């Protein structure tokens, strides 16, 4: 147990007991990003998967919408400590997008419009754990929250769910992304409180 601060009582709720360590509940939806919000035109939007052999598969906005859509309802955990429960998204499972991609890669570097990157193991994108989403609560995803489309990997801290996603590089060796180079954890499991490098 940490050092007790006299007079601090805090606020407890049953819901908060269900949260990962160090998180608190919020009902609004804060935003964290390192620069201006990119404005991405749907007419030129693409999502590209590049394998370790530099083979590319590209989807346009129409292509994405033509794929089977799922509606995951998930909890979000941001490394800045807020959690938001029960958000519902619309998008395409990475299982669908990667189904016909031939690869022996174990790692992924995610790219975004605006230059943001983040890395994670490929297996964390598969088996129903990740989506490219374009709707939040039934409405088009606002640009401040990553629209037109973002990655959603809700079992990791939210910085892994790259906003304004533009593609994935499948890699045989792990390569740190933007926040991962700046001292944040390489994996980012909220339940093990992997916030910063070495946690």
């Amino acid at each position: 147990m940490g050092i007790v601060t006299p007079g601090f009582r805090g606020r407890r709720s049953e819901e908060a007991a269900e949260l990962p360590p160090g998180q608190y509940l919020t009902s609004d939806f804060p935003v964290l990003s390192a620069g201006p919000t990119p404005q991405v035109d749907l007419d030129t939007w693409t999502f590209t998967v590049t394998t370790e052999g530099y083979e590319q598969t590209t989807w346009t906005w129409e292509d994405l919408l033509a794929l089977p859509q799922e509606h995951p309802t998930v909890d979000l955990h941001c490394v800045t400590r807020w959690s938001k429960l029960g958000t519902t998204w619309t998008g395409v499972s990475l299982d669908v997008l990667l189904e016909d991609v031939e690869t022996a890669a174990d790692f992924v570097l995610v790219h975004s419009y605006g230059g943001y990157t983040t890395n994670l193991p490929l297996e964390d994108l598969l088996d129903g754990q990740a989506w490219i989403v374009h709707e939040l609560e039934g409405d088009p995803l606002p640009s401040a929250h990553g629209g037109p489309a973002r990655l959603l990997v809700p079992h990791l801290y939210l910085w892994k769910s790259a906003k304004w996603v533009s593609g994935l590089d499948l890699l045989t060796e792990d390569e740190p992304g933007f926040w991962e180079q700046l001292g944040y954890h390489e994996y980012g499991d909220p339940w093990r409180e992997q916030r910063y490098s070495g946690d």
Partner: protein
Amino acid sequence: MRLSWYPATLVERRAETPTVATLVLRVPGWPGHLPGQHVDVRLTAEDGYSTQRSYSLAAPDHGAVLEITVQALGDGEVSPFLVEGLVVGDPVELRGPVGGWFVWSPVSVAGLVDRVLLVAGGSGVVPLMAMVRARHEAGSTVPMRLVYSVRTPADVIYADELDRLAKEDDGLEVLLVHTREAPPGSGRPAGRLSADELATLAWPPADDVRAYVCGPTAFVDAAAAGLVRAGYHDAAIRTERFGGE
């Protein structure tokens, strides 16, 4: 290397505005930090319940003495306690420094960034003040311009110090924008900082200018978008946003 939790003791509290206070904390063993970085604060109750929040550091590295400036949010679990409940001598725990992107130091970027534009909304001024103070303490003459949006004159955090530094420090400009109530004699009626107005208050875009924008999400989105429309490159704008508690 893992970031450690440090025991910290409140050594001074300064009221900045009716709802904002600066807490001066002694943190033995603190490893140092850069202006713009933040810390995690952990509070633990007697029964073992604990909770954590992030706060920007308000001053440059002064060894074992840190400053955070906290705004009491009405329904917040932590901030009203920090602003009103924590007593000099009380212990808390700190972890950090955190964040390596939203940083500026008069030493580290000399020659790369020649002018620094700071755009603050409300308590978003806190990490920017660490940069203003770092520049002052280093005797730097790097041109620095702070555009600071506040609701009323009474809401200006660090008002006296900003006033003094703007007069004393060569190359430092402080431009206040009041959104709800302007001071008597102000030539500008109270109102939001528009993109057009920001474009006139900011330097014209140039390769040697870097902008740091900090404040509530809506403010940062509008200000950053305004700078982009004024011709700033995305890469020249660094942002830090905060939501409510």
